[in-house]
């Protein structure tokens, strides 16, 4: 850049220009242009996203970005969601809060996913940030209602408190009452994860009453059907609502009250909750169905006929619905109905009602998904649990929905082949990656050989996240993926015969990814050590709860392996069952 150019744009102007650049990727690009742009950019970056809390240290973040107002952190690997990561693994947020408390007095937003958050952390947040507005704890754990009470009491301008899917220790139900009477700023409240005893309903009602800007409210199970109407009448401006319990004995006055309350919510677009549904109460929703764009019935154990009624008795439902999450009670017939009504559907998730049963309990097969793919050309995101699949079906789905960006298929029994031909499902998944050129996320299941990975490596150029279980024959499979998938950021593998060779051959690739998880595979301890030695930019961690890996020969495979890139070096909060392969750590011990 010529000197003239630099002088012609004073810092303030550049700063102003940069303020329009929101995406992290663009901001990162801006900071690479030249030194002065790097400097200007780093002083005006307000939002930081850290996909792996161990990839960088709080101090480093603070040093580079001194004026951050919003931070998002993710902790445990994704497979922690399925109990594959032992407790105590890590992901503690306390140190981050402690450091930011000093450095970012104006921090307003903290979003955490899969992290361990203690009451101490929550109390520190409450104490340290005077302008605190947004707290999202997605799938977190380690805190109790005491911590929530501290947040409620101290955060005068709290806008968002979202605890979705977190594990909260029930100590007392009265933390909601800690919101001062002067708190009127709530926009979003999600307490759906709380156990029955933890919510004082009267405090909730009063809170809802005095927050005119409340747009999103997800109640927990304890809130019974008769109470829903009360809440809705206090908050007719709601856009997104999660019911609590949706079951009660059918009583006409309760029903009409509920129906009336729903119809008074003219802005309501998104519904969820519906635990313990009594189908007779579903018609109370009819008045708002035409406006709905998102419907989450994935906890509603209602049968297919009731669902079809819901979908079909709402004349305009079809045009606006974008996301449906249903249990497989919906069955193929329900999905076919959906496909004919909801032409704008973009995302479908079908969860299993009886995942551990041996025999299928409902008639949900690949046909349902094929029907939706045929009827809903805008389909982008699929999560589908079923018990059988065929290559033909997958090919059809791929051809019908070339716009798929996320495709997660879980055939419940591992290594299930094509039920028609008994072939592996390589060709089917191959068609998916071949036709869906923008596919970013893929989860595999069923019987799969190395072939499928060859397809993925060849066609999955935009693939960012891949989940693999019980698949493949050899290291070749892993090698295809590591060498072919250029955009790969997250790879998680369990119970596959992948060993040292592919991993070591593609060691450099690991530096371009966020993380790699391998459990119950065949990577030897020796290979892990080698990786740890030779790749200083990676943290190579071996997890073994039974005994230390070096008490066995080096050729023994490790139980679980987690590799991630990091500029912070090996972490210091590893529990005893996690071993770092970093040379430096070894010396210390």
């Amino acid at each position, binding site marked *: 850049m010529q000197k003239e150019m630099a002088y012609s744009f004073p810092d303030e102007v550049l700063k102003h220009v940069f303020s329009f650049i929101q995406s992290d990727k663009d901001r990162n690009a801006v900071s690479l242009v030249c030194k002065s742009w790097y400097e200007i950019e780093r002083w005006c970056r307000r939002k930081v996203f850290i996909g792996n809390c161990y990839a960088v240290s709080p101090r480093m973040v603070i040093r580079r970005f001194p004026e951050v107002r919003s931070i998002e952190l993710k902790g445990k690997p994704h497979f922690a*969601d*399925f*109990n594959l990561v*032992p*407790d105590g693994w890590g992901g503690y947020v306390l140190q981050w809060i402690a450091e930011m408390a000093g450095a970012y007095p104006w921090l307003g937003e903290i979003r955490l996913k899969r992290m361990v958050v203690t009451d101490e952390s929550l109390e520190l947040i409450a104490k340290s940030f005077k302008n605190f507005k947004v707290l999202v704890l997605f799938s977190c754990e380690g805190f109790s209602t005491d911590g929530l009470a501290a947040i409620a009491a101290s955060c005068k301008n709290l806008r968002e408190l979202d605890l979705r899917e977190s594990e909260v220790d029930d100590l007392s139900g009265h933390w909601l009452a800690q919101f001062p009477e002067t708190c009127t700023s709530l926009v979003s409240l999600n307490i759906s994860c709380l156990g029955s005893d933890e919510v004082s309903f009267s405090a909730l009602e009063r809170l809802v009453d005095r927050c005119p800007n409340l747009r999103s409210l997800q109640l927990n199970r304890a809130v019974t059907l008769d109470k829903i109407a009360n809440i809705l009448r206090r908050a007719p401006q709601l856009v997104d609502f999660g019911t609590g319990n949706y079951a009660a004995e059918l009583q006409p006055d309760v029903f009409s009250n509920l129906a009336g309350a729903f119809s008074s919510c003219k802005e309501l677009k998104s519904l969820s909750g519906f*635990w*313990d549904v009594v189908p007779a109460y579903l018609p109370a929703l009819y008045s708002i169905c035409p406006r709905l764009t998102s419907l989450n019935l994935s*906890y509603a*154990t209602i049968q297919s006929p009731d669902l079809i009624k819901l979908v079909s008795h709402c004349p305009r439902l079809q045009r606006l619905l974008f996301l449906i999450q249903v249990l497989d009670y919906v069955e193929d017939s329900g999905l076919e109905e959906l496909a004919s009504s909801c032409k704008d559907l973009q995302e479908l998730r079908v969860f299993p009602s009886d*995942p*551990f049963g041996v025999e299928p309990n409902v008639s949900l097969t690949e046909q349902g998904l094929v029907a939706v793919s045929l009827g809903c050309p805008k389909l982008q995101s699929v999560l589908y649990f079923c018990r059988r699949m065929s290559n033909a079906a997958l090919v059809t789905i791929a051809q019908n929905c070339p716009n798929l960006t996320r495709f997660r298929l*879980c055939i419940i*029994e*591992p290594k299930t082949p094509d039920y028609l031909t008994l*072939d592996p499902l390589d060709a089917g998944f*191959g068609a998916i990656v*071949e036709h869906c050129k923008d596919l970013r996320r893929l989860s595999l299941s069923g019987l799969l*050989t*190395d*072939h499928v990975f*060859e397809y993925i490596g060849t066609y999955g*150029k935009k693939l960012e996240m891949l*989940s693999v*279980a*019980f698949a*493949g*024959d*050899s290291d*070749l499979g892993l090698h295809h993926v590591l060498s*072919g998938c250029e955009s790969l950021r997250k790879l998680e593998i369990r*119970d*596959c*015969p992948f060993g040292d*060779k592919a991993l*070591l*051959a593609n*060691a*450099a690739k690991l530096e371009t990814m966020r993380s790699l998880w391998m*459990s*119950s595979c*065949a990577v030897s301890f*020796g*290979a892990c*050590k*080698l*990786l740890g030695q030779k790749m200083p930019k990676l943290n190579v961690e071996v997890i073994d*709860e039974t*005994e*230390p890996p*070096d*008490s066995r*020969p*080096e*050729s023994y*495979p*490790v139980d679980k392996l987690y590799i991630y890139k990091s500029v912070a070096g090996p972490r210091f909060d*590893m529990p*005893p069952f996690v071993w770092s392969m970093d040379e430096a*750590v070894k010396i210390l*011990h």
Partner: protein
Amino acid sequence: MSPPLLGVEEEVQSSVSSPSVECISENGMGLKERNYLGLSDCSSVDSSGVSSNLNLATELRLGLPGSQSPERETEFCLLNLGKLDEKPLFPLLPSKDGICSSSQKNVVTGNKRGFSDTMDGFSEVKGYVYTEKSWMFHEAGSDSESPQSVGHGKYPGNSGVNVILSTRSPGVQASVKQDEPANVLQEQPRATNGTSLKQTVISNNTTGAPAAKAQVVGWPPIRPFRTKTLAASSKNNDEVDGKPGPGALFVKVIMDGAPYLRKVDLRTYSTYQELSSALEKMFSCFTLGQCGSHGTAGKEILSESRLKDLLHGSEYVVTYKDKDGDWMLVGDVPWEMFIETCKRLKIMKSSNAIGLAPRAVEKSKANNKKEFGYGC
């Protein structure tokens, strides 16, 4: 989709010191140890699985469009494939007898390697090979924990070598299984599989008996919030359903003085003894008063027997919180009843447990060492 271009290469081993091509035909016996950088000291890499001289990556790279790894100066890749993209492929080495190869491309590089005994250690455990429409498990080891799909194919079990030809799969292991000294997966009991894969084979189980379908940890992949919610729903809906609850039953376990709590799945145990051993293992590091001596941990962690002595020396008791919120000593009620009512476990110092149901304490004293690991 074009057919895969790769095939199995014969075992080729290079001399350590020079990059020249050499073929050392060793009949698959005792592969020399090399590490991936071609250096002769390979104390850290000793298994055949790790050190076998294969060049799979280059061959593969050549077959696949766009699969170039980023160029770097140093040994960016531990199989040292850096300059291979530019080299042509010449089959310089004769095929090994008895090994089939479905590809004509042999890669020649500075470190000559072959895509040789590729799968020996691995797919024997867990992979299978296709032969037309049928397939069999390729298992040459005594690996009893390999996850085997229910009802498919045959299970050679502990049989010896299987040489299987396939014209379809690139993942053919054509190498004759050898009695390699350090074959990774042949010998060890794969303790890991105990935790991750409890699924046992229906036929040809090593225990002989046809096993019921047990559960695999974390499969199907459903978040615990959903499982919990659905379980609660179904409990409300059909109380009389006597079906033994499937799914895991995780309860938190706290130990006095431990920095974090753990969770155990009560359904994975069937007796108090099993639970006791598991808890001992889990919390052994805490009773040592040290966590984190990793390098020499193998020597320092107490053996289980020493640990038992420590615990039997009446330091700790295990208690649980039941449905009513009361803390009781573990071991009183029949196991099935216990898992129904247990909400949380706590390992506390015996001195702190005095307030608990005295009858239970007496009973526990009487049946001290036999019944439950943590006596009082």
